[in-house]
C-alpha cells in the first residue's frame, strides 16, 4: 500500500465538466411536454376549455403509459415485441367490469370509500387475471420464438386474435356499458373549467404508479437487475442472475399493468368491446416508438405527449386527431431516430 502512494503521480485526475447545453441534452424531451401544453394554450383561445382538455389529455396519457410501460420493458429486456399486449388490456377491462357489475351495491352507494374499494377490487382482480394470463402467454406463445422478430410479430398477433375470440366466447359478442361509481360521476369546476372527477383520479393514479415504478427501478436490487438487463442481458446472466426468471417477472408485471390500464380505460370510455385492446395498441405503439424502445421515462413523456396531442387536435380539428399523432411520431423520429430517450445497448 505504501508503495503505491509513494510512486503515485503528482496530479489528481480531473473530470471534464460538461457544458450546460450538453448536460441538458438528454433531458430535452422533458421540455416537450410543457412546450406542447403552451402551444395548446396559444392555439385554443378559451383558457377554460384549454384546462379541461389538458386534464383529459393528461388522464389519457397516464392510462396509455400504464399500458405501454410493460411492453417497452419487455422489449428492452429480451428483445421481444409483443403485438398481443392489447389482449391483456381487453381481458383486464372485461374482468374489471364484471367485478364492478357484481359489486353494483358498492359502486351505487354514495360513499367515496365504498366506491374506491369496489374500483380497487376490480383493479386487483383484473391484474391477477391478466398476470396469470401473461404467464401463460409467455410460456405458450412467446417462449418458442425468441430471437426471431418476424415470428414474434406473427405469433403474438395470432395470440391476440385467439384472445379476442375467447372474450367473445366468455362474455358474448356485445359491447358492455358501465357507469362510473356514484362519487366519481360528475365534475368539479376550477377557474371556470369543468374537470371530470374521474379524470383527476386517473391522473393521480397514473402519477402514483409512475413514481412507484421509478422507485422500484431506481432503488431496489430487482430494479437494478432489470435496468442492467435492459442494457446488457448476457452480462447480467454472467453475473449469476437468472435473467429468464427476471424477464418472466417483468412480463407478468407488464401484463398486469396492461390489465389495470384496461380497467382505467373502461371507466374512462364507460364502454368496453373485445376489440378495444387492439385500438389502444395503435397509440401504445406510437408511444413506445417515440419514447425509445426499452425506456420507461421516455415512455412516460411519450404517453403524455400523445394524450395531450390527441385531445388538443380533437378539439381544434376532430378529423385529424389520429393523424396528428402520426405527425408527432414522424417529427420525433426525424429528430431522434431511436426515440426520445433511447436505451444504449452494450453490444
Amino acid at each position, binding site marked *: 500500500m505504501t508503495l503505491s502512494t509513494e510512486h503515485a503521480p503528482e496530479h489528481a485526475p480531473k473530470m471534464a465538466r460538461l457544458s450546460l447545453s450538453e448536460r441538458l441534452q438528454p433531458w430535452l424531451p422533458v421540455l416537450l411536454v410543457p412546450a406542447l401544453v403552451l402551444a395548446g394554450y396559444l392555439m385554443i383561445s378559451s383558457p377554460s376549455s384549454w384546462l379541461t382538455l389538458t386534464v383529459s389529455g393528461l388522464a389519457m396519457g397516464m392510462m396509455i403509459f400504464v399500458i405501454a410501460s410493460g411492453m417497452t420493458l419487455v422489449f428492452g429486456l429480451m428483445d421481444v415485441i409483443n403485438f398481443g399486449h392489447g389482449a391483456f388490456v381487453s381481458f383486464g377491462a372485461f374482468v374489471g367490469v364484471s367485478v364492478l357489475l357484481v359489486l353494483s351495491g358498492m359502486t351505487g352507494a354514495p360513499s367515496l370509500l365504498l366506491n374506491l374499494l369496489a374500483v380497487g377490487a376490480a383493479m386487483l382482480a383484473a391484474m391477477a387475471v391478466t398476470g396469470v394470463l401473461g404467464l401463460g402467454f409467455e410460456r405458450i406463445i412467446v417462449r418458442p420464438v425468441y430471437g426471431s422478430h418476424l415470428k414474434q410479430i*406473427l405469433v403474438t398477433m395470432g395470440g391476440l386474435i*385467439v384472445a379476442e375470440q375467447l372474450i*367473445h366466447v366468455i362474455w358474448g*359478442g356485445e359491447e358492455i356499458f358501465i357507469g362510473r361509481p356514484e362519487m366519481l360521476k360528475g365534475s368539479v369546476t376550477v377557474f371556470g373549467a369543468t374537470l371530470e372527477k374521474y379524470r383527476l383520479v386517473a391522473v393521480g393514479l397514473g402519477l402514483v404508479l409512475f413514481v412507484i415504478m421509478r422507485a422500484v427501478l431506481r432503488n431496489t436490487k430487482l430494479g437494478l437487475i432489470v435496468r442492467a438487463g435492459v442494457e446488457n442481458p448476457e452480462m447480467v446472466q454472467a453475473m449469476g442472475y437468472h435473467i429468464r426468471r427476471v424477464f418472466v417477472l417483468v412480463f407478468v408485471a407488464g401484463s398486469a399493468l396492461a390489465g389495470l390500464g384496461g380497467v382505467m380505460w373502461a371507466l374512462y370510455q364507460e364502454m368496453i368491446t373485445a376489440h378495444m385492446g*387492439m385500438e389502444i395498441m395503435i397509440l401504445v*405503439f406510437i408511444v413506445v416508438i417515440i419514447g425509445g424502445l426499452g425506456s420507461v421515462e421516455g415512455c412516460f413523456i411519450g404517453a403524455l405527449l400523445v394524450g395531450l396531442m390527441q385531445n388538443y387536435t380533437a378539439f381544434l380539428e376532430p378529423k385529424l386527431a*389520429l393523424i396528428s399523432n402520426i405527425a408527432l*411520431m414522424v417529427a420525433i423520429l426525424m429528430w431522434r431516430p*431511436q426515440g426520445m430517450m433511447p436505451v444504449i445497448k452494450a453490444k
Partner: protein
Amino acid sequence: MIRLFLSGDHPQSRVLAALLLVILVTLAFAPFLFPGTRSLETAARICIFIVLVASYDLLLGYAGIVSFAHTMFFGMGAYGVAIATQRMGTGYDALITGTVAGTALAAVFALGIALFSLRVRAIFFAMITLAIASAVGVLVSQLSGITGGEDGMNIRIPRELTPAFRPFDEPVMGLRITGRHLNYYLVFFSCLIMFLVLLRVVNSPFGRVLQAIRENAFRAEAIGYRVVYYRAMATVLSAAVAALAGAVFAIWLRYVGPATTLGVEIMLDILLIVVIGGMGTMYGAVIGTVVFVLAQNYLKDWMGGASDATSFLPLVPDLLNPDRWLMWLGILFILSVYFFPSGVVGRLRGKA
C-alpha cells in the same frame, strides 16, 4: 413454354402441381362449371385475393418485412377507381385513370413509409404501418365528401361489363354470356398476369437478394447490397400490385367501402392465408386463398352443426359457434408458425 410462364419456379411436387392445375382450370371455366351468381362472385374473389395475398407474400415471405398497411394500398386502388369514375363519368378512360392514379399514390406512399421507417429499424415497420393504416382508415370514413364515408361509393362501370349487356343471341356452351362474365374474365386474366409477374419478380436476381436479406440482412449489406434500397423497392412493388388488385376488385364489385377494402379483418385474413399457405412460396397464396375461402363457406356450416350437436355440453357449443371460426383459424395460424413455417406448400414439397 411452361418454364417461361412459371419463371423456372416449378411446383416441385406432383400433388401441388395437380392442385394448382385443378384450381387454374376451375377458375378459368368457372362461369361454365358453376353458372350461379354466387359462385361466380366467389371465383372472382378468389382470383383477386390470390393476387393480393401473393403481393403480400413478396413482402412477408421473400423480404421478411411485416406490414399491416397492405389493405390500405388495396383500398387506394379501389378508391382511385371509385373517385375517378365519380369525377370523370362512366367510361374506360375513367377506369384507367383511376387505376393508374391509385397505384401511383400507393407506390409513393409505400416509398415514403419505407424510407422513413426501414431506415430507422426494420421492426418499427410493423408498428408504424399499423398506426398509419388505422389513421388512414379513420380518415377515409370521416372525409365523406370525397370517399362517401362509412357508406362507401357505388361505381358506375361501362355497360359492356354489366349483366345488362348481352353480346351473343345464342347461348355459348349452354351459358348465356353477359357483360358480367366478360367482367369476370377481365378479373381472371388481369389477376393471372399479375400473379405470373410476381412469380417472375421473386425468381429474378432481385428476388434472390430479397431472400438473402431476409436470411441475414447484415451479411447481405456486407456483400454489397444496399439493404434499405431493396427493402424499399419490395415495399413499393407489393403496394403497387395490391393497389392494382384493389382497382380490379372495385371494377368487379362496383362498390367500395371502408369495410370491404380497408378493414383490419381483411388484413388479418391476408396474414392468415399467407402463413397457412406457405410464406415465401407464391403458390402458397393460391392454395391458402382457396382453402381459406372454402373454409369460410363450409367450415362455418360444419361448426354450426357441431355446435348444435354438442348443445348439451357446457362451453363447448360456444367454442364451436360458427362466429368463433376465427379463433380456430388463429390457433391453426400459431401452430403453423411454430411447426410448418413454410405452410401447406412447404409440406407438399417435403421440405418443411
